[in-house]
């Protein structure tokens, strides 16, 4: 009976409008009603129109495939990265892990053959995932710091193994360069299949749904009976595994493993995921959004290259995009949740 006063006394009473059944979508604030993906589609179209006008080489099938091929490596890694970010986790070690897995593959296949090399690369990816996962879920280290540490350690380890050299890999070009269907490069097909698989996982499996719940509120997730630690560990393992797959494609494309192969890859991946609408606060994000984020970055890079803009400017553009995306996320959160 005194409760109404109690609520008012604290000055926190919910305005009556919010307690009534909203008759329609007209009540949601404007910014929260825009589909997550709409601004990205607009941005992508704008970039496409701009580059089509500026460069005669932009708008054709081959260049379209170039864009997709350029997005493939980051895209294969961005799929599990979306899953992780949705659960409120980061993996910054992906670039360094890609370098490490590639070098490991080249090193082992030189001694024991290609098959052994492939197995070694995948085991290497799992190892890094297991280390990240253990540190985050068992020891409880912040994921940013954990993966920053593994980032530094594994690129160093790769250089130790390769002795700082680029290691050649022969007879393994098929994965990276063959074009089995409509002249589409195999990496693009792998990329699209991975995106498709993660689409299903994140939308239609208990595992995927649990990641959203963990990201939205880890304490509540545990109290709802979700095995948060185990699920996050599996996600880090997935991240490592797909990094290994991307590393194999990278090695195959270059017929060599470079100790610089994954430099800066983490930036591209995180930018794409955040640009795609995954919230840094966790609990929100989709794989389709990430796909568009990847396309925006790839189109931007491709277009700037076609216009012969100095490649250093591409880094500036990517960094700016990341900051814009994160700022947009903050504004959305403020409007969506505070009301």
């Amino acid at each position, binding site marked *: *009976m*005194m*409760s*109404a*006063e*109690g*609520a*008012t*006394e*604290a*000055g*926190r*009473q*919910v305005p009556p409008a*919010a*307690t*009534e*059944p*909203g*008759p*329609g979508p007209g009540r*949601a604030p404007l910014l929260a009603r825009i589909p997550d993906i709409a601004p990205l589609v607009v941005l992508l179209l704008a970039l496409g129109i701009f580059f089509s006008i500026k460069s005669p080489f932009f708008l054709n099938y081959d260049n379209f495939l170039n864009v997709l091929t350029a997005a493939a490596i980051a895209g294969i890694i961005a799929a599990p990265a979306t899953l992780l970010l949705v659960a409120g986790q980061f993996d910054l070690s992906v670039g360094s892990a890609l370098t490490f897995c590639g070098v490991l593959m080249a090193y082992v296949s030189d001694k024991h053959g290609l098959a052994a090399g492939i197995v070694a690369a995948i085991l290497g990816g799992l190892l890094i995932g297991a280390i990240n996962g253990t540190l985050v879920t068992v020891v409880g280290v912040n994921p940013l710091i954990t993966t920053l540490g593994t980032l530094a350690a594994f690129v160093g380890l790769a250089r130790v193994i390769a002795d700082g050299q680029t290691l050649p890999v022969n007879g393994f070009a098929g994965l990276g360069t063959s074009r089995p269907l409509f002249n589409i490069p195999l990496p693009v097909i792998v990329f699209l299949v991975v995106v498709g698989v993660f689409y299903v996982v994140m*939308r*239609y*499996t*208990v*595992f995927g*749904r*649990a990641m*959203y*719940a963990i990201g*939205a*509120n880890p*304490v*509540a*997730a*545990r*109290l*709802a*009976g*979700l*095995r948060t630690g185990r699920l996050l560990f599996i996600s880090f393992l997935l991240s490592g595994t797909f990094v290994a797959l991307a590393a194999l494609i990278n090695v195959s494309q270059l017929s060599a493993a470079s100790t610089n192969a994954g430099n800066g890859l983490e930036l591209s991946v995180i930018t794409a995921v955040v640009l795609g609408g995954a*919230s840094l*606060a966790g*609990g*929100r994000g989709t794989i389709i959004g990430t796909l568009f984020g990847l396309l925006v970055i790839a189109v931007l890079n491709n277009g700037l290259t076609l216009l012969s803009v100095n490649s250093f400017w591409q880094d500036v553009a990517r960094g700016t995009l990341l900051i814009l995306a994160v700022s947009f996320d903050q504004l959305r959160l403020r409007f*969506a*949740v505070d*009301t």
Partner: protein
Amino acid sequence: MTDAPFQLSARGIRKGFGGVEVLHGVDLDATGGSVLALLGENGAGKSTLVKIIAGDYQPDDGRLTIAGQERTSLTPPQARDLGIRMIFQELADAPTLTVAENISLGRWPTRRGLVSWRAVKRRAAEVVEQLGVDLDLDAPVGSLSVGERQIVEIARALSDRARCLVLDEPTAALSSQEAERLFTFVRRLRDQGVALIYITHRLDEVREISDRVVVLRDGNVALEAESGSVSREQMVSAMVGRSLGEVSRPADVHQPPVDATPALRFDGAALAGEFDEVALDVHGGEVVALYGKLGSGIAEVAECAFGVRRLSAGRMELAGKAVSFRQPWDAIAAGVGFLPADRQREGAFMVRSVAENLAAPSWGPLSRRGFLTADREATAYRRWHKELNIRSRDDPRQLLATLSGGNQQKVLLGRWLERQSKVLVLVEPTRGVDVGARQEIYRAIRALAASGVAVLVATSDYEEVVQLADRALVMGRGRVVAQLADHEITTQRLTQEVGG
């Protein structure tokens, strides 16, 4: 301290929020060298009143005279300048800094722009000496007990020229030993000429510590008296007042237990530092309330029943079988459901849909080989949407954050209906829920019990106990202090038992 005794007078203070007046012209006096106890139930207007004194709220009407200055309202900096300081229940210290640093927190003495650590230590030593406490000035505050940390906060206020100190339920989280220690300091401060306003729920403290007592009820002063001349019963009836008759037990509350074996049973249960020797049983079909104040151990007992924490001693049984839950999912698998006290922090996925929120614990049973469709979730949501009378758009994808507190709580309650839990453990089920929704939640809980579920409600709201419980256990400082059966559950009994 200055020579003229500090005097604070509030006259005819009125304050409303959103058209609802919560203070209807209240008078209050605090004098240097005396302790004023401020009593009242939740919502009586205590915190609004002291926030006006501290400058956090501006009164709609009335005037304040503080240390000879007359004002119609105050800003927080003005209140500070006049020497008014508040010590809240939630500690506002910096746990990783030392005692000395905390005492000077935010106004560290400087020499030529650099912090002078000698002066920091000296100032801390002075004020600790003045308080007559034994504190290691170099110890990080986080390593101290809650009681000691409170004393550090008082020391901080004191070193910052405090002349009027407002203590908001300072003993709520203290052991009786620590509370005794705090009383010693309060008396010492009083003797040094500080005016103290002491907010409390505990009636026995009023006589022990205060010179005068003011009881607020529904935004009015219901009683003002010398603490020595007022009886416990007078204070209780002043606090509870006419509402005593209003909170009546619904006729259908009492349900005879269906099973002889209790669905949930604790025997000699203990959790180190939180509670000890707790014995309770809840049968299928009954609602048992665990009533106590903050820090009494009720929330911890509830958490142990759900595997959030593990008993350090004693036995827990589910339907006659000994169990030991390591994690919440063990409890859920065994048929226990749980509603945490802090809905936002521990219960809700605010940025996710209502359907997901309701279905989360049932994802396993709802899925086929790990695959789950939004359809099945929506069906689960619709099953309970009507039953629980959840007021929302007819859209399972609506975000939980867009519902009112009461309706959010219904969604979270729906989780365990969908999961078909046999035992429900609810902590403060209607905290922050408006009156109408509160009744609906009570109805839903009673309906659950009627269907054979065993319900344990841990609450600090005695009205909730009266309206909901078949039996009640009252806890104080980690022990069960009273057991009340059906007809014994009255607001008066509960208030008395918990105060003792």
